[in-house]
């Protein structure tokens, strides 16, 4: 039995903040925006007690910049935001990907585009999480479906960012961020935490972007005598700018493939009643819950239907999705956007004609009844 703490009533955003602190985050830089602000507020209150630092910056661009500056000193650092702020952070997220600075960005999704609906739930930033910053780049994104998962996936996200030296995005949505649930958090001593690898060589031999078979370079903390250079320009293994196309290509290909290399470890998911399933839901985040209820309702009526929950969205678990979609009579993809995950599934499965979207973007969550009636409508024709 896994050791658990006493049950407590927690909000999703709060669970995320608690997880960050317990996983060792000691710097938070951000700018207030609904529905993510509770995370900043919690950090402002708790970080100084732990010797950590909180700063409310003048905008989200600088919030992201400050996080990266702090991360370079060897501090685990995080920021939190929502749609409009997530847009502003993109250039510096690209900088983090290019220079391989570990950092975690929480995006509590709200309705867009633009100011949209600040307190209305949505899942419309799936593609922005993947492709929001310019150029081909690696990214990891996870999306929790409950308050407990908000805790668990935040710990994972921090570990992934440290291990792979890459930005990791936590896609919460307003539903999960603001939901209160009774949770039993795992006992502190059971947490497995990871820290970036520090240099194993002396300063004179240190090549900041040289790697062994792990594909992940060792990272020196600023102020420890390594005197290294960090630049968003194309650089070689010394970290300095280069114009040599063969070197650039080699570095970029390593950058792009380093996350794929660890895909098995990064891919987090859950399945529910899929053993005998003829029909399947694939969904993520706040939409998992109504879909789960729909499974119950439909099962009672004798339909063999199960659910595959993506916790890790990026990199997209292509093979697993292919496997689960095989031979299904229909695959339903409920999401609070117009089909961003469905599009990814469509790219990778052979039975594309079996894919059915259940989509809603009016700022209301998708209800179990809406899901059930769509399933029945389609299944009746199968």
């Amino acid at each position, binding site marked *: 039995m896994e050791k658990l703490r006493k049950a407590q009533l927690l909000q999703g955003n709060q669970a995320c903040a608690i997880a960050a602190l317990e996983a060792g985050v*000691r*710097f938070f*830089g951000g700018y207030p925006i609904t529905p993510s602000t509770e995370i900043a507020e919690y950090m402002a209150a708790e970080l*100084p*007690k732990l*010797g950590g*630092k909180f*700063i409310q*910056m*003048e*905008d989200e*661009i*600088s*919030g*992201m*910049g*400050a*996080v*990266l*500056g*702090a*991360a*370079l*000193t*060897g*501090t685990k*650092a995080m920021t939190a935001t929502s749609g409009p702020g997530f847009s502003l952070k993109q*250039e*510096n997220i690209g*900088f983090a990907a290019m220079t391989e600075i570990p950092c975690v960005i929480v995006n509590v999704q709200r309705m867009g585009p633009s100011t949209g609906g600040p307190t209305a739930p949505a899942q419309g930033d799936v593609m922005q999480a993947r492709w929001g910053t310019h150029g081909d780049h690696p990214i990891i994104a996870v999306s929790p479906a409950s308050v407990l998962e908000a805790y668990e996936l935040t710990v994972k996200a921090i570990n992934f960012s440290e291990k792979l030296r890459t930005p990791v995005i936590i896609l919460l949505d307003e539903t999960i961020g603001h939901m209160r649930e009774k949770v039993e958090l795992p006992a502190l001593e059971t947490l497995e935490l990871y820290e970036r690898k520090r240099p194993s060589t002396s300063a004179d031999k240190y090549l900041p972007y040289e790697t062994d078979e792990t594909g992940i370079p060792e990272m020196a903390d*600023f*102020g*420890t*005598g*390594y*005197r*290294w*250079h*960090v*630049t*968003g*320009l194309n650089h070689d293994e010394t970290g*300095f*700018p280069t114009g040599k196309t063969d070197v650039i290509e080699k570095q970029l290909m390593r950058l792009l493939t380093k996350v794929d290399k660890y895909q098995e470890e990064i891919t987090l998911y859950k399945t529910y009643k899929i053993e005998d399933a003829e029909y399947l839901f694939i969904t993520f985040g706040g939409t998992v819950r109504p879909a789960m209820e729909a499974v119950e309702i439909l099962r009672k009526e004798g339909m063999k239907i199960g659910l595959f929950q993506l916790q890790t969205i990026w990199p997209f678990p292509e093979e697993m999705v292919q496997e689960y979609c095989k031979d299904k009579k229909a695959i339903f993809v409920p999401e609070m956007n117009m089909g961003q995950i469905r599009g990814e599934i469509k790219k990778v499965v052979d039975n594309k004609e079996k894919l059915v979207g259940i989509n809603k973007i009016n700022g209301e969550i998708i209800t179990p009844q809406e899901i059930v009636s769509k399933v029945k409508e389609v299944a009746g024709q199968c």
Partner: protein
Amino acid sequence: MLKDIEKLLRQDKMPHIWCPGCGNGIVMKAMLEAINSTGIDTEKTVVVSGIGCSSRATGYMNFDTLHTTHGRALAFATGVKLAKPELNVFVVTGDGDGSAIGGNHLIHAARRNIDINVVMFNNNIYGMTGGQYSPLTPHGKFATTAPYGNFDRTFNICDLVKGAGATFIGRGTVFHTKILTELIKGAIENKGFSFVEAVSICPISYGRRNKMGTAPQMMEWLKKNSMPVKAAEKLGPEKVEGKILVGELYKEEAPEFTQKYDELIARFQKGAE
């Protein structure tokens, strides 16, 4: 002296990318001389820059160096300094980088009085992108995007920084290198936000279009058109009009941001004892 400076340069990265006659090397040297003469721990020194010709200086300076995104050096530097206040943090920025796209960060870093030393390489133009006007291009001057002369009013960045709350402000030029070095020393010694405007020359993207001649002629122009701020105080405003005032412009004592934060942490630690 020169030997000491050489240790602070990444000599294997030479030659630098700057054009012949560019003022950037002079400002960088003044920074290194100031750092060297104050004897701060160079292993605990971080230099952060944005994007532009001037911001490439970080690649040549032998510290932990961080060449960030356009305009954002101060944001990154704030994170470095707050996370590890024991580090000496410098920012190298251009006039476009620091006053246009990064202008908001400049205001807020100054307002916080966070202990960061900013050296703004002011060549009055966007050098790297080939000569577009910046907020510090004087009124009436020409740029590729101001082909009929710049409409904007001449802007004094030191006044802005003063209004925002900086506790040490100075202006030097690439002609007055001794003064410039002294000012950067003053910035290092100030425990708070320090700002040094280094008026520089860009013969290629600015001088040429404004018919200011060669680099030596531009230096001559700087000499003729500047005066010590102390001397200016004694003259009437009409005699000072249009002159570049050089020297220490402002100094004040005020609580420093990271120190205040550390006091807060200490309060909690005491409470826990």
